């Protein structure tokens, strides 16, 4: 019964989506307010129906109902409850249902909180949003029904891929999807704007929160995924430039660009066409990402979804959505007129540079990701594009962004003087260069990666600090007044500084771990001691142990500095009998200045293969990501972005930005 109810609910949602896609748009064309008013309630019904279906599927998973095919092939009665739950989206059909659930959730948010939106805009946005959900509901119903029954239910399930049985990966997809799908909102707003042929500051204010929300969740999702890779894969890599990772990284880059260009639209009524194009591109990359992951066209980690029929369906959605919106863009973009002009040295120009670097970087990632496919289709050559290419081709853009960021962030709108703007940053520049020289001399030559990377990181972080300091006029007025100024600083400005500092911290972590990591690989006997980078590792013992649905071999490695124990690590090798699959769980001790990382390998003779690493400042990669997301959150909480706030803005004191 449960599964059938779920199935019915999806069909209901499909029908409602159809109505919601047509009626409000029709109403918009004929000026019929009653038809336009159907959008809100329809969005809520859609959300209710999909939400109900999702709950039904969750019940099937949690109660291990193996008569449902999806549950039988992806769950197991002995699986811990958390993974029964996360198993709902640990497979193709369930993750598509989650995708749609989040999509209609966004629609419901607009319906509930979008009271301040003009009726026509709201109707069009929800209509476009519903066209997307209509396409994906059709995809779910016709190619990926999660509620399919089995005639002969098995006694027990096939279990979830053990690699997915991990807290980091359990919550990685929901965050990613919140980000991917969040970009559908900005897409819908862009299409609505093109339909009405105008974009103004209010439009930018309505769009920016969605872009922010999408970006924040994407940031968290990507960080979770990379953290998982770090501790699960056994050698501490945290980014692989895998097609699936790139699929989430491209929308992230575009979302960053969109966030920034929307500011220009809001504050200066300029770059309108570009911003609309970015909003379309952002969601296009989300769709391309979904296509890459779901079709298996570029075989990769997430190979659990290799199915050509599904691939073709998503490709069709992709072509219609991207092609349609870009055609509309080509037809209507000329009607988006700007009123403002700005000079070469201005905040606007800085943001143009930011957008240029981000978008070209995203294109580089895109070309690299699809190149093997293109090469094979056009010339029949089979080749690979991997980390070395991306590191080489992508890094220069990030260096460029890091160099320009602190100055551009301080430039005034419309027209600025470079020398005047750069004055408060001299301190940051001097400190950053001093740090570079210090590191360079400390490591006595060697690769330039550490000095340059850390110098850039310091420049970006200090730039953010000096930005805030300058806004508070610290040192120029008395401290109390400064603090009052800082307290009254809009949240969006705090968010900006915090997010920028977060980027700097991530650059710091990446540079440090890449330049300074040391490793030791050996067959270690029980009781063996060895020294690595000043830490004495002692391989104490190996024990067998049993988890709920796996067997494990757990090593104990204690780490000493001057005979004082600083960490006891428990690297694990697990074996999941149902899927006959081994996994590794590295033993990690994290501290702000270093991670100690040990992975246990196989037994060789009377010893064990032991891989030990000292990874300086590794956690800063993720601290930086969290700080970035936090900055986005701060910005999101700024009162001027509360949906509908744009209308009330008149009369409120605006703090000059």
């Amino acid at each position, binding site marked *: 019964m449960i599964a059938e109810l779920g199935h019915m609910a999806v069909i209901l949602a499909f029908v409602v989506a159809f109505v919601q896609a047509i009626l409000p748009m029709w109403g918009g064309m004929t000026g019929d307010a009653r038809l336009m008013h159907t959008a809100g309630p329809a969005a809520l019904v859609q959300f209710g129906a999909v939400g109900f279906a999702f709950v039904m599927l969750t019940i099937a998973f949690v109660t291990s109902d193996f008569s449902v095919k999806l549950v039988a092939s992806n769950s197991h009665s002995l699986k811990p409850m958390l993974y029964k739950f996360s198993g709902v989206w640990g497979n193709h059909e369930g993750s598509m249902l989650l995708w749609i659930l989040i999509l209609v959730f966004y629609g419901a948010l607009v319906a509930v909180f979008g009271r301040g939106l003009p009726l026509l805009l709201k109707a069009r946005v929800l209509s476009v949003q519903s066209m997307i959900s209509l396409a994906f509901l059709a995809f779910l119903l016709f190619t990926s029904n999660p509620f399919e029954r089995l005639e002969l239910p098995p006694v027990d399930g096939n279990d979830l891929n053990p690699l997915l049985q991990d807290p980091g990966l359990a919550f990685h997809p929901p965050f990613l999807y919140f980000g991917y799908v969040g970009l559908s909102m900005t897409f819908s707003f862009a299409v609505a704007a093109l339909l009405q042929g105008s974009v103004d500051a209010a439009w930018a204010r309505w769009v920016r929160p969605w872009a922010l929300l999408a970006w924040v969740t994407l940031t968290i999702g990507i960080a979770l995924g990379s953290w998982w*890779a770090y501790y699960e*894969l*056994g*050698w501490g*890599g945290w980014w*692989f*430039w*895998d*097609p699936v990772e790139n699929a989430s990284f491209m929308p992230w880059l575009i979302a960053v660009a969109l966030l920034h260009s929307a500011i*220009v639209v809001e504050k200066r009524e*300029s*770059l*309108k*066409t*570009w911003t609309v194009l970015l909003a379309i591109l952002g969601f296009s990359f989300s769709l391309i990402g979904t296509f890459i992951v779901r079709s298996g066209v570029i*075989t*990769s*980690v997430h*190979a659990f979804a290799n199915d050509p029929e599904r691939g073709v369906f998503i490709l069709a959605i992709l072509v219609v959505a991207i092609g349609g919106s870009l055609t509309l863009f080509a037809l209507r973009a000329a009607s*988006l*007129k*700007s*009123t*403002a*002009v*700005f000079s*070469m040295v201005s905040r*606007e120009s800085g943001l*143009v540079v930011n*957008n*240029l670097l981000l*978008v*070209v970087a995203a*294109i*580089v990632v895109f*070309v690299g990701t699809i*190149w093997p496919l293109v*090469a094979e289709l056009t010339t029949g*050559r*089979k*080749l*690979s*594009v*991997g*980390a*070395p*290419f991306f590191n*080489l*081709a992508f890094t*220069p*853009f990030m260096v460029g962004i890091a160099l320009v960021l602190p100055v551009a962030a301080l430039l005034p709108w419309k027209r600025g003087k470079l020398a005047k703007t750069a004055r408060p940053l001299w301190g940051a520049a001097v400190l950053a260069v001093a740090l570079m020289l210090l590191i360079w001399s400390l490591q006595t030559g060697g690769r330039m990666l550490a000095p340059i990377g850390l110098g850039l990181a310091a420049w970006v972080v200090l730039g953010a600090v000096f930005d805030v300091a300058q806004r508070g006029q610290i040192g120029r007025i008395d401290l109390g007044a400064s603090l009052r100024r800082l307290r009254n600083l809009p949240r969006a400005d705090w968010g900006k500084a915090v997010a920028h500092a977060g980027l700097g911290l991530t650059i710091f972590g990446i540079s440090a771990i890449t330049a300074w990591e040391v490793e030791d690989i050996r*067959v270690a006997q029980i009781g063996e001691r060895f020294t690595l980078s000043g830490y004495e590792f002692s391989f104490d013992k190996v024990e067998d142990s049993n988890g709920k649905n796996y067997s494990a071999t757990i090593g104990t490695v204690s780490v000493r500095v001057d005979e004082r124990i600083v960490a006891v690590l428990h690297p694990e090798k697990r074996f999941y009998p149902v899927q*006959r*699959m*081994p*996994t590794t769980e590295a033993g990690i001790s994290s501290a702000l200045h270093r991670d100690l990382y040990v992975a246990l*390998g*196989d037994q*060789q003779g009377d010893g064990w*293969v032991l891989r030990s690493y000292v990874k300086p400042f590794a956690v800063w990669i993720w601290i930086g990501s969290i700080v970035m997301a936090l900055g986005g959150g701060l910005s999101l909480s700024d009162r001027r972005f509360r949906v509908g706030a744009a209308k009330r803005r008149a009369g409120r004191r605006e703090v000059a930005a």
Partner: protein
Amino acid sequence: MIRVCIILIALMALPVQAVEPDEILSDVAQEARAREISKNLRCLICRNENIDSSNAGIAKDLRILVRERIVAGDSNEQVIDFVVDRYGEYVLLQPRRSWGNLLLWLAGPLMLLFGGYIGLRTIKTGGDAPAQDLTPEEQQRLKDLMRD
């Protein structure tokens, strides 16, 4: 990639591991070169994983092959050519800078130039299709009006 690899290994039920102690060359400089070369060579049955971190048997074979060539006195380029001759361009994680890959390598720089040009034009004109500029006569008229 990694997961596919692990699954394949699980099927073979004979797990081997990434760079193993017995493979490591005693000459530190030679081992460092082997690592450098390995980073650009992919494990053929995995997705996007280099042979250094792969657990697959083929990766182990390649690691040993690379070290044999180094010990035999090959330069880094010679080692890579040797491997590519046998396994094809597919084995390289960083595609060659050949005519066939021209677009891949130039995509970034070209887009940057093109985008830079558009960006500059945008900055000069003030973004988007500018609201129609006033002609000199209109400006003069405006000035006259303002004076009144």
